């Protein structure tokens, strides 16, 4: 399934909803969109992975890159993910210790600014 990206504002956060497959072919589009959001002034980004069917190391690299960029700008990035196969990927790579992970977009927004 192709990558889909859509953005909305919620409670002072920019929510980027990602769907489909994030891999070595599609990840550059995710990277471009995140850079656009940061350049446009977004500082608190919530990436909703709820409709992602597939995520590989390239996609994870893009998410870490965005996290670093946002932290340098004094902002933060959190992730929404409640699917066990994806959560396992974060555990195996130890990236669950790097990203604030939430089960729902609402929980991510309620948690306030991510570090």
């Amino acid at each position: 399934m192709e990558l889909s990206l859509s953005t909305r504002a919620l409670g002072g956060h920019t929510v980027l909803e990602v769907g489909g497959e994030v891999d070595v072919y599609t990840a550059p589009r995710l990277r471009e969109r995140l850079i656009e959001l940061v350049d446009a002034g977004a500082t608190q980004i919530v990436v909703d992975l709820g409709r992602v069917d597939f995520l590989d190391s390239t996609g994870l690299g893009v998410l870490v890159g965005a996290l670093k960029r946002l932290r340098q700008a004094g902002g933060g990035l959190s992730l929404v993910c409640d699917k066990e196969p994806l959560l396992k990927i974060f555990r195996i790579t130890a990236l669950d210790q790097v990203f604030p992970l939430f089960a729902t977009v609402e929980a991510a927004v309620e948690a306030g600014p991510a570090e």
Partner: protein
Amino acid sequence: MATVRLSFSPAPVHVRTARLVGVAVARRAGVAEELLDEVRLAIGEACTRAVALHRQYGLADLVLVEMSDGGNYVVRVIDRAPIEAGLGLAALPPDELANESLTDEALTVGVGFALLAGFVEDLQVRPVEVGIGTEVRMVWPVGR
């Protein structure tokens, strides 16, 4: 024993095709349904790694994926990059992955290896027997 071979130009767009074929052959071979996500991810990571190496070295050679189901489901992903480069991609320990001073490229490579090592119990990365290149060999049990 049944064998399926797939060769593709080292372009990211073809990695998805390799994943789809790899999972289809795994299902046909009798790999348990609950392992198929891991098979899909691992074949994708191995192919992504091969494509990255070919692009790094400017190699137009095809990446070869060979799937066979003699007793186990065995997938070999073969690149043609210099051996020292291929084997040099060895693992970063998980705590290193969280190190924010890593470059994005190094992080992606490290994460890719962590996923391969984490999802494939029977994993070998070794020089090809003939010529230049490395082989990532992954084995999954067949449930029949």
